[in-house]
C-alpha cells in the first residue's frame, strides 16, 4: 500500500498505550498497557484502536469499547481523553480526525474516557451523554409544528447574524467542552444552542423561555458552572467560541429579570 509518508520509516510507529478499562459503571476501572507496533502515520486515531482491537480479539482478549460512527468529525459520537486532552493534541479536531502522524515512534499515549458526573461511564471509553438530549428537550428548539411555516424568504435574517448563528450551530454535541472543563460545565454546549437559535429572528419569541429552561435542566443534570478558564473552547473540535457563554449569561440575566416564572415551562405547541 502506498502510505505516502516515508519520513516515519517503513515500519510505522511503535507505541505504548495505557487505556482505561472498566467493565461497567459499577465495576472498578484501571489502566491497562498495550504495546502496539507498526502503526501507519496515515491512520486515524480510531483506526489505530481498530488495529489494537483486532489484535486483542485474535489473542482472545476483550476488545476496548469506544463510541464512534461517522469518522469524519461531524456525528459527535467519538471522544476520549488523549494524554489528558479531550480529543487529543490537535486543535479543532475530533478524535476520529486526529491522525497518527501527530505522534512519533516511541510515544506513550494515555487514553481515558470523558470524565464528568453528568456523563456516567458505561464501559471502557463509552460514557452516557444523554444529559445533553434532556437539556435540548427542555428548550433547545423553536416551537413550530410541521406545515405551519410561511415562505422561507418572507423572514430575512441579516447575513452577519446568520453567520454567527451558524458558527454556534456547528456544535456536534460531543461533550469535549464538559470533559475539558475543571468544573465539568456544559455552558459552551448550552451557550452554543442558545446563540444558534436566539440570534435568528425566528428564534426570538422563545429566547427568554429557552435560556431559563435549558439552564435549569443543565443544573439539574449536575453540570458545573463556568469559571472562565476557556478550556472548553480550546478542546472544541468545532472551535465554538466562549463568546457564546457570554451570550448565554447575558440572555439568562435578562430573562431572569424580565420573565414571568410560569412561562419557563409549559406547552411548546
Amino acid at each position, binding site marked *: *500500500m*502506498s502510505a505516502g509518508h516515508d519520513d516515519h520509516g517503513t515500519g510505522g510507529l511503535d507505541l505504548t498505550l495505557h487505556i482505561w478499562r472498566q467493565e461497567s459503571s459499577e465495576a472498578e476501572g484501571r489502566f491497562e498497557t498495550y504495546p502496539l507496533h507498526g502503526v501507519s502515520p*496515515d*491512520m*486515524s486515531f*480510531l*483506526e489505530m484502536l*481498530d*488495529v489494537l482491537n*483486532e489484535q486483542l*480479539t*485474535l489473542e*482472545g482478549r476483550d*476488545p476496548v*469499547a469506544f463510541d464512534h*460512527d*461517522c469518522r*469524519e*468529525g*461531524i*456525528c459527535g*459520537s467519538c471522544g476520549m481523553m488523549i494524554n489528558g486532552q479531550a480529543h487529543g493534541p490537535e486543535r479543532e479536531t475530533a478524535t476520529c*480526525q486526529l*491522525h497518527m502522524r501527530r505522534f512519533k515512534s516511541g510515544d506513550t499515549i494515555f487514553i481515558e474516557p470523558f470524565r464528568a458526573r453528568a456523563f456516567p461511564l*458505561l*464501559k*471502557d471509553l463509552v460514557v452516557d*451523554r*444523554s444529559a445533553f*438530549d434532556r437539556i*435540548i428537550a*427542555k*428548550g*433547545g*428548539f*423553536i*416551537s*413550530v*409544528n*410541521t*406545515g405551519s*411555516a410561511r415562505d*422561507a*424568504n418572507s423572514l*430575512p*435574517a*441579516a*447575513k452577519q447574524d*446568520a453567520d454567527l*448563528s*451558524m458558527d454556534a*450551530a*456547528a456544535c*456536534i*454535541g460531543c461533550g469535549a467542552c464538559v470533559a475539558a472543563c475543571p468544573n465539568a460545565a456544559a455552558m459552551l454546549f448550552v451557550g452554543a444552542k442558545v446563540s*444558534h437559535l436566539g440570534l*435568528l429572528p*425566528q428564534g426570538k419569541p422563545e429566547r427568554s423561555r429557552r435560556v431559563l429552561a435549558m439552564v435549569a435542566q443543565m443544573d439539574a443534570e449536575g453540570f458545573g458552572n463556568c469559571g472562565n478558564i476557556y478550556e472548553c473552547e480550546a478542546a472544541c473540535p468545532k472551535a465554538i467560541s466562549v463568546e457564546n457563554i457570554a451570550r448565554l449569561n447575558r440572555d439568562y440575566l435578562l430573562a431572569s429579570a424580565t420573565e414571568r416564572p410560569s412561562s419557563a415551562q409549559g*406547552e411548546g*405547541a
Partner: protein
Amino acid sequence: MHSTPTTASELFTRASAAKLDSKCPSGPMSERWDKHRFDLKLVNPANKRKFHALVVGTGLAGASAAASLAELGYQVSVFCIHDSPRRAHSIAAQGGINAAKNYPNDGDSIRRLFYDTVKGGDFRARESNVYRLAQVSNNIIDQCVAQGVPFAREYGGLLDNRSFGGAQVSRTFYARGQTGQQLLLGAYQALMRQVGLGRVTLHARHEMLDLVVVDGIARGIVTRDVVSGEIESYAGDAVLLCTGGYGNVFYLSTNAKKSNVTAAWRAHKRGALFANPCFTQIHPTCIPVSGSHQSKLTLMSESLRNDGRVWVPKNKGDKRSPDSIPDGERDYYLERRYPSFGNLVPRDIASRAAKQMVDDGRGVGGNGMSVFLDFRDAIKRDGESKIRERYGNLFQMYERITDEDPYRVPMRMYPAVHYTMGGVWVDYNLESTVPGLFVLGEANFSDHGANRLGASALMQGLADGYFVIPYTIGAHFASRKLGKVTTEHEAFREAEGAVRARVKKLLATDGRRTVDQFHRQLGLLMWDHCGMGRSEKGLTHALGQIRSLRDEFHQDVRVLGENESVNMSLENAGRVADFFELAELMVIDALHRRESCGGHFREEYQTEEGEARRDDENFCYVAAWEHAQAGGAPRWSLHTEPLSFEEVKLTQRSYK
C-alpha cells in the same frame, strides 16, 4: 461448497402472483398528490392518541416523521442505535438540499426539478413519486427555516443557492458544508421538543433486530439494548423503518460505521419485498484509499465541482507534479466530453469517467488510483478568501486526512460507495408489502431510480417524514381493523426467540477470524464485481465466492465477550451476517438486469462512447425480490412493477 449457477432460472424464480400495486393516483400529474390526500381517510383528532407508531431510526426521515406524527397527536416511540438521535448519519451530508423555489430566477420550477430527477435517475423511478417530491420540496425549506436552520444567506438577508450535478439551475440550499448536520439538528430538536412534552418515548442505544407481524400486519419490533444486551419487544399499530441505506456492504464506503441493513433485512425476511438492490451510488469525489488500515472513506461534497475542475494528464504515466503540467497537456475530460454540463454531470457519469481515466493508465497519485480536482483557476478568479468562505471546512478536512494543502496542490479524488437507491419496496403511501410497515428515506427505493442527484437525499428524507407519512399513515389507521396486540402475543415470543438464538450462535461460534476480516473480504468482492463496472462473468464469480465466504463466516467467526454488556463485535457480527445475504441478492439483481442504467453499469451493455445503454423494452421495471428460505440457503422470487413514463419522454440520457 456451492456450485456456480449458470442460468437465470437457477438464480431465482419469477413470481406468478398478482403484480405489485403501487397505488399511484391517476389523473394529471400535478394534481395527483392533492387528489390522493383528499381521498385518503382521516383519523379524527381525538382518536389519534389511540394509535401508536414505532419509528426506527432518527435520521432526517425518522426524526422528522416522529416529530410530525407526535405533533398530530399520535403516540410515538422512537428507537436509535446511537447514544443520541442527533448522531444518525444524515448528519454527515455536506453539500445541500434541493428545492424548486426558483429564488435565483434562473428558470427553475417544480416541473424542472421533477424532470431533472427522473432523467438523473435514468428513468427507473416512479414518476408520481418524483413529482410529489418536487412539489413538497418547497415546503421543506419553509419548515427548516422556521425551525432555525441557519442556511447560507445573501447580504440582503435572503437565502442563497448553489449548483449541484445534473441540473442547469441553482436550486441547492446549504449551510456551509454542513447542511445535513443543520437539517438533522432541526428535525432532532423538533423531535426532542416532543420528547420533552411527553408525546414521544425515546429509546436510544436500541438496535432493531426483528419485525413482528401479527395477522399479516406489522405490529411490533424486537430490539437489543446495546448497553445491557437485553432483548426487548415493543408493540404498536404501525412500524416505520427509517434506517438508511446499505452501502456498508462494501466495507469501505462513505457511510458511518454503524450504518447497516439489518432492520430492513429483517423486515425483508418477514415478507417485505426488496427493490432494485443492485442500484448503488458510487460518489465521484472521495478521498482515495491510503492503506489497508482504512476503516471508511470520506466524501468531499459535490458542491466542490461548482468551482473545482476535474482533470488528468493527457499522457499515460505522467508523474510530474500537477503544477508543472502545462494546460495543453491536461485533459479536463468532463468539460471535454460533456460541454453543456461540464464538471457538473451527474454522479454516476462522473464516477465512471474517473474509472475510465484510471483504467486507461492516466490516473494520478502514488498508485495512479485518483484524478485531480483543481481549484487553481477558481482561486485565481475569485480569490482565496472567497474559496475559503465557500469550502473552508471541506478543505480543512481534506488536509487533515491527506496532509496536503488543497489551496496549493489539487485535491486527489476517487469514487467511493456513498448511497443506495435500492431498498425496501414501497407503494405511493410509503407502505411496504407488509401492511402497517412503512419505509422512509434512503431505506426505501422509491424516488431516485438508478442514480440519485446530489442534494436530493436530504430532500427525500424530509419529504417522506414531514410531508408524506403524516397523511398516508392515517389511511392505515383509519381503514384497517387493528385489534389490541401486546408483546405477550405468540408472534413476539417467536421473534424474540429467533433473535436470542442468533445472538447465542454468534457468541458460540468461537472461530479464528474477526468480524472485520470477513467484512473486508466481502467488501472487496462487492467492489471488484458489483461496483462501478459489472459483468456476467465477474458477478457469477462473485456469487460463488460470497456463498462460500458466508459459510466460512458462520463456522469461523470469532466474537468475544458476552451479550450482557457493550459488545461492539457482537453488534457488528449480526450486521455483517445480514450483509452477506444482502450481497447475494445484490449480485443476483445485477446479473438479472441485463442492461446498464444509472449507477448499474453492465460492461456488456454500453454505447460506443462508453455510456450506459438502457434496455427499455425488457427492463423498464422495478425489480422487487421476495425472500424464501430453501433448506438453509436464501432463495428469491422476482416480482416486477412496470414503470410508465407519461410526462418525461423515455430517451437516452445526454449531458453533452
